[in-house]
């Protein structure tokens, strides 16, 4: 790939991000603006922003790479990433919006009236956020190495720097605009090359010439039933506990609009995931050597240049590189904002200055991790973060919203059980490597039920610790907002 093209694409995205960030800064005035955009963001904007924030390196590069590697087995990843939002819609979207809390720790503290629960939740949220930022930075390293020939660390540092500047300067209000812009940029960046390539491969009779699509370039065995089920448990129930996803729902004006927004998000995600899937399919036919050379995640970046030569190929490559950086920037900034919210409220007193210090802290720690660890398949490592979230935050949210009997002791015991079991499995599978048995490599199918079971049993045993405010709070979570008498009606 032409290094100048890659560099220009990165600089273009960085400048556009910063410009929209500063435009947002001018209208961001209060601390409320700074945290959650004062809850005045419209559903379409908000849905685009949620989509922009959610579609990370794993979706943009990783899904196509994994499809190239494992074929139809990997199709469960985009399905799971999307269906996770369906679960979020069904079980948490409206009640969580109605809770009126800003962050997950705010919610658990309000629900269980316990500072200890708040602290444990905060720790889990920070761990999830850091784990999730690392693959973004590794993806940035990969992209910069492939597109410009610069060393990987330059990409990671560039992403942290751009995110740091936008978050510290603008907070959530500008982030909303930046994220919405980045959804559409990512969609365009994947869709244009894929449509172009598909048209090029379409025969006169209107069907694609994809003779070898079913071939298996790596000869990897197909995933077993357990692996697939466990992966789906992680993706379906992990999404609803992701900290950067949850904080977005507070920007809806009420519960109903939170549901409407989620419906739009589902549409946006469904449209998006058609394209990495198509990329993966094209890659299996035209670039199987990438799978064998151990660089499957680079497929999306290299495919246009490989199939289309000359200036059009360079332009398509530039577009894809721009989209990839949009993915790293948007997910990382979303995570940094939500982590900074948690860190600053719990450690630094909740001021705007504390938020800025916390944002720096939230971005720099995973940078150190990204430098010291090797990158694995991006979609796979993000899938493991989903498993961790599904084993820790998901149970406390679901039971907190739907079950009156949850006690603070139960919540803490369940979250710790999930964190220890799932974290332990993830660490040991990293140590063992590819020889790790399936139940350790993909632990969600047993760690999620275990966390739920411990949470329920300990809550039952400590029935007397259920807070007296539970009736009040459950009413608040589930009763529809009174239709506010708008100015029009009053007139």
């Amino acid at each position, binding site marked *: 790939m032409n290094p100048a093209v890659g560099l220009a694409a990165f600089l273009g995205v960085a400048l556009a991000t910063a410009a929209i960030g500063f435009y947002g800064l001018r209208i961001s005035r*209060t*601390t*409320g*603006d700074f*945290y959650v955009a*004062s809850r005045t963001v419209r559903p379409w904007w908000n849905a685009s922003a949620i989509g922009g924030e959610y579609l990370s390196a794993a979706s943009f590069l990783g899904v196509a790479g994994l499809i190239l590697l494992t074929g*139809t087995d990997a*199709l*469960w990843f*985009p*399905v799971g990433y*999307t*269906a996770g939002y*369906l*679960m979020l*819609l*069904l*079980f948490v979207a*409206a009640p969580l919006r109605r809770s*009126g*809390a*800003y*962050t997950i720790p*705010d919610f658990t503290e*309000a629900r269980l009236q316990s500072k200890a629960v708040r602290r444990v939740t905060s720790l889990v949220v920070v761990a999830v956020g850091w784990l999730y930022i690392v693959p973004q930075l590794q993806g940035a390293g990969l992209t910069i190495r492939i597109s410009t020939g610069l060393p990987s660390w330059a990409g990671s540092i560039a992403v942290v720097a751009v995110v740091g500047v936008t978050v510290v300067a603008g907070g959530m209000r500008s982030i909303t605009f930046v994220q919405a812009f980045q959804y559409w940029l990512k969609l365009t960046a994947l869709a244009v090359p894929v449509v172009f390539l598909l048209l090029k491969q*379409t*025969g006169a009779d209107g*069907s*694609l*010439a*994809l003779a070898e*699509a*079913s071939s298996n370039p790596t000869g990897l065995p197909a995933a077993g*039933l357990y692996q*697939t089920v466990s992966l*789906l448990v992680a993706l379906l129930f992990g999404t609803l506990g992701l900290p950067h996803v949850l904080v977005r729902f507070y920007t809806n004006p009420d519960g*109903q609009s939170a*549901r*409407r927004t*989620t*419906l739009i998000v*589902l*549409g946006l995600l*469904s449209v998006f*995931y*058609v394209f990495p*899937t198509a990329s993966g*399919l094209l890659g299996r036919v035209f670039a199987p050597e990438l799978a064998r050379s151990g660089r499957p995640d680079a497929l999306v970046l290299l495919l246009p240049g490989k199939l289309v030569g000359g200036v059009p190929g360079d332009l398509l490559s530039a577009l894809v590189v721009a989209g990839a950086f949009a993915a790293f920037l948007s997910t990382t900034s979303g995570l940094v904002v939500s982590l900074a919210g948690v860190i600053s*409220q719990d450690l630094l*007193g*909740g*001021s705007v200055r504390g938020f800025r210090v916390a944002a720096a802290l939230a971005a720099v720690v995973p940078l150190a991790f990204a430098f010291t660890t090797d990158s694995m398949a991006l979609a796979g490592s993000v899938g493991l973060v989903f498993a961790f979230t599904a084993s820790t935050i998901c149970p406390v949210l679901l039971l907190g919203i*739907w079950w009156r009997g949850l006690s603070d002791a139960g919540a803490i015991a369940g979250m710790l059980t999930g964190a220890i079991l799932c974290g332990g499995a993830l660490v040991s599978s990293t140590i063992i490597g590819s020889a790790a048995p399936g139940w350790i490599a993909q632990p969600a199918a047993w760690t999620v039920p275990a966390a739920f079971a411990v949470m329920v049993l300990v809550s039952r045993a400590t029935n007397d610790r259920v807070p007296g405010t539970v009736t*009040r709070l*459950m*009413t*608040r979570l*589930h*009763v*529809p907002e009174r239709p506010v008498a708008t100015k029009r009606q009053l007139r």
Partner: protein
Amino acid sequence: MTRVRVTAPQSGAKVAPTRPYHSREAAEDSDVGQVFVRSLIRSQLRLAVVVASGFLLVLAAYGSMVALVPQLAQMRLLGIPVNWVILGVALYPVIGLSAWLYNRSAARNEARYRDLVEDK
């Protein structure tokens, strides 16, 4: 839109007053009001579980179809293997449809609750 200045949300976490206190909320604190609230929560949970199970059944059906009928990989739809079409494209409309049905029914449950409470 009015702007509300919010400082450290920690204290606000305990039920921030985003809406004014209405007589309806007083009714919700009463025994009868709580019966209505509990029945609303039960019907919303039942709805969510039904939609989720329905979706998971479809998911399982698609998955087992692809796993148990290997011939699908040989068949082509516009040149694309049919097993890819099933998992890579055909599941998304099911997700969207489930979400749309849920939204409609959840809003209906809430409207029914509103009618019950506000008619008094």
